[in-house]
């Protein structure tokens, strides 16, 4: 609706590296859901977009989410749809997974597992880092 790209908005041909850093569990607070909305909008701007999952943010990607009991929408299928928006650079912090007893095969998307050091380097190379 009104959340699409507005007339007059433009990127002037500039392509920047945007990284969205997801730090929170998917439910309990709205950060993950509204964060994902920004990611989807950013796809319309032809930027170099990547997503990083750290801390409890790794839970956003866990397979088999069941939200009926809390009457919240299970929005995890949307992460699978990111590919269709040409958002294919997904990174997860190895240490965050390990600390929570999770492994790559528990996650619902193809993702690159990086150490916190590697992720820090990648973050440092970004133009814009937005964390939710």
């Amino acid at each position, binding site marked *: 609706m009104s959340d699409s790209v507005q007339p007059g*908005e433009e990127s002037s041909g500039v392509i920047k590296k945007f990284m969205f850093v997801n730090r929170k569990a998917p439910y309990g607070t709205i950060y993950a859901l*509204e964060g994902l909305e920004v990611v989807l909008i950013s796809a*319309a701007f032809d930027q170099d977009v990547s997503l990083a999952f750290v801390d409890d943010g790794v839970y956003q990607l866990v397979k088999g989410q069941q939200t009926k009991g809390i009457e919240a929408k299970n929005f995890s299928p949307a992460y699978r749809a990111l590919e269709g928006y040409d958002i294919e650079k997904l990174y997860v912090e190895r240490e965050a997974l390990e600390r929570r007893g999770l492994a790559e095969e528990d996650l619902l998307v193809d993702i690159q597992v990086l150490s916190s050091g590697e992720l820090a380097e990648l973050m440092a190379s970004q133009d814009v880092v937005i964390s*939710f």
Partner: protein
Amino acid sequence: MKFGILVNEGPYTHEASDSAYLFTRAALEKGHEIYRVFFYHDGVNNATKYTEPPQDDRHIVNRWSKLAAEHGVDLVVCVAAALRRGIKDDLLAPGFRISGLGQLVEAGIQGDRLVVFGD
């Protein structure tokens, strides 16, 4: 330098809005440009005109409005986040406007730095 500012928390409950305001004011005082301040998540609650804190407290909403009036700072409230929380045009304090999330992405593209204030 040209800054974009993102405010992700509501007023009073959380210090993020205070920090964002103090940063924005300091940047302007130093001669920097503020391309836009974007209010997201509960940050949209910074824009409501019926906010009335006790008189001995800072008025967070009016403080933003004053910054807009004096320095022409563009204060943008996310439409999706605002509607979710019952905030529409007629509730906005002076200087605020409602627009889409694209305005946040644009601030990232056009600014030299995007500074995020949140939890």
